[in-house]
């Protein structure tokens, strides 16, 4: 009797598995991915740049300043602040902007770069620290996740390292 009941359960389960298989492309992928999408997850700030702190409007383009990103756990990451210039196709041929990164009303860095006409061409730029809070970068492109001036789609992404001594205080 037990064997019979177990067999019935097993075949019912197998039938259920077939139903699941048949519903994968129509229902299940969407349902499971919906769960993932609504789980409140976010991409690690090392890749995403973190949360937006404020936006500065310039003539024809805007500058998005992100919150400082600090390494978590044993993350091999130099602390940095991300700045995004967008849209890249509306930027002047040469950009040189003084930007307030920490929100104290005074500029912290001057970012300058020449926008290549070819969107796939390698971009290089300079970051000049105007105080001791940040680190200057010269002729930088994609040195690391904390030091970069790169074109990503229709944005120019700049990451400025935070002076470790200042960050540590």
């Amino acid at each position: 009797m037990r064997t019979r009941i177990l067999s019935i359960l097993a075949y019912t389960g197998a039938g259920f598995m077939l139903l699941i298989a048949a519903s994968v492309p129509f229902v299940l992928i969407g349902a499971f991915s919906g769960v993932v999408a609504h789980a409140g997850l976010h991409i690690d700030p090392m890749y995403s740049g973190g949360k937006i702190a404020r936006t500065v409007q310039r003539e024809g383009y805007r500058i998005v300043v992100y919150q400082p990103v600090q390494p978590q756990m044993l993350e091999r990451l130099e602390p940095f602040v991300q700045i995004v210039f967008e849209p890249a196709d509306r930027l002047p041929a040469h950009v040189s902007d003084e930007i307030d990164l920490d929100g104290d009303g005074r500029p912290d860095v001057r970012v300058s770069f020449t926008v290549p006409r070819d969107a796939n061409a390698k971009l290089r730029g300079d970051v000049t620290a105007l105080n001791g809070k940040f680190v200057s970068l010269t002729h930088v492109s994609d040195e690391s996740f904390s030091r970069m001036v790169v074109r990503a789609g229709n944005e120019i992404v700049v990451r400025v390292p935070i002076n470790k001594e200042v960050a540590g205080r």
Partner: protein
Amino acid sequence: MASNSSTVARPAAFRGVGRSILLTLPIALWSLLMFTPTLQHPGRDRIIGGIAVIVFMTALFFLMMRTGETYRWRRIFFVALGFLFPIGFIASLVAERGTMSIPISRMVSGDTPFCFMVTPSIILPAAFARTIIFPGAIMSTATNPRSIAIMIGLWFAFTLVLGKAWCSYACFFGGIEEGFAALPKRRRLHKFVTKYGSVLRLIPWAILVFVVLVSAAILEPVYCMWLCPFKAVTEFPAVRNVETAIQFGVFIALFVGLVVVLPLLTKKRTQCGFFCPFGAFQSLFNKINLFEIRFDRAKCVDCTLCQTSCPTVALSKESIREGKTLLNCMKCGACVDSCKKDAAVWHLKGTPVAVKPERARLLFLYGAWGLATMFGGTILAGSLAAIIGFLPWK
């Protein structure tokens, strides 16, 4: 391609043509359903690719039904998937960005397609910090349709149905080494693999624990960044300093060693059996999966043909004596097909062993082949379309 068919004594369930066609009909209809959007596509290359895959998948399933053998026909699909996936993938990368390498700019813009191999590494940071340590996008975007949500959803749905059989019906990497393992006629290092099998099969678990813990500690997908052999034939972080140059060297060395040379020597899927942490992770789902391979002890003569034929060392003398496979069995069917006494059988958990094993095989294969057609078939069709697109006389 050398085949394991030399060890096949007699098909367990040879059928007539009519009955085989009837049993194949659901898969043929499913294939048509899956590729209907492709067939309505205006691109001729994609239509040809779609039709070829419908015929291919249906024909292979028919042969499984007709001959009663699983492994050799599944292997044809799987090797085709393994070798065509990189072609299609690399073609799309080159068309899109002109190189196989991922520049840092694409990582920060979330344009890296999510790979299921990274799944175990992201679990702890996602669970405890709600952080995904992968440079992709949570939701699909125009520039990255293979988002984390979609790929995790796909993997989870497949895993519910297939368990560890993911590794022999869905993994587009495993086919590469299965292809190399199929080439030689002679098995070398057989004694070594048999003698140290119990140790070798623990390595993926050790790598899994290492990768999961270190990834959670340093918040980087360690396997992707340092250990994935398949970076060599898909995409890899652009070489821009000494660290990324070493990473690239490691990818190449692991690919050549584990995916090409060792399978050629051992006729085993050495990367899958002795290295892959995702495979180890996937083994856990065999516990909840309904389908398995069992051994009818009344028929078994302990010839160990099944053990020799197993591509991932998922059998030991002790496990055969107990009538079971080990946890890392990926249900490829090699042992069942190689058994001359019909002692190795497909089994549905909860039912008596060796009673109606063909029914268990059919139930498993409908699910597995249906999903293989949907996932692997779509990849095959895309890759074929890419190849047709490159043909010089086109």
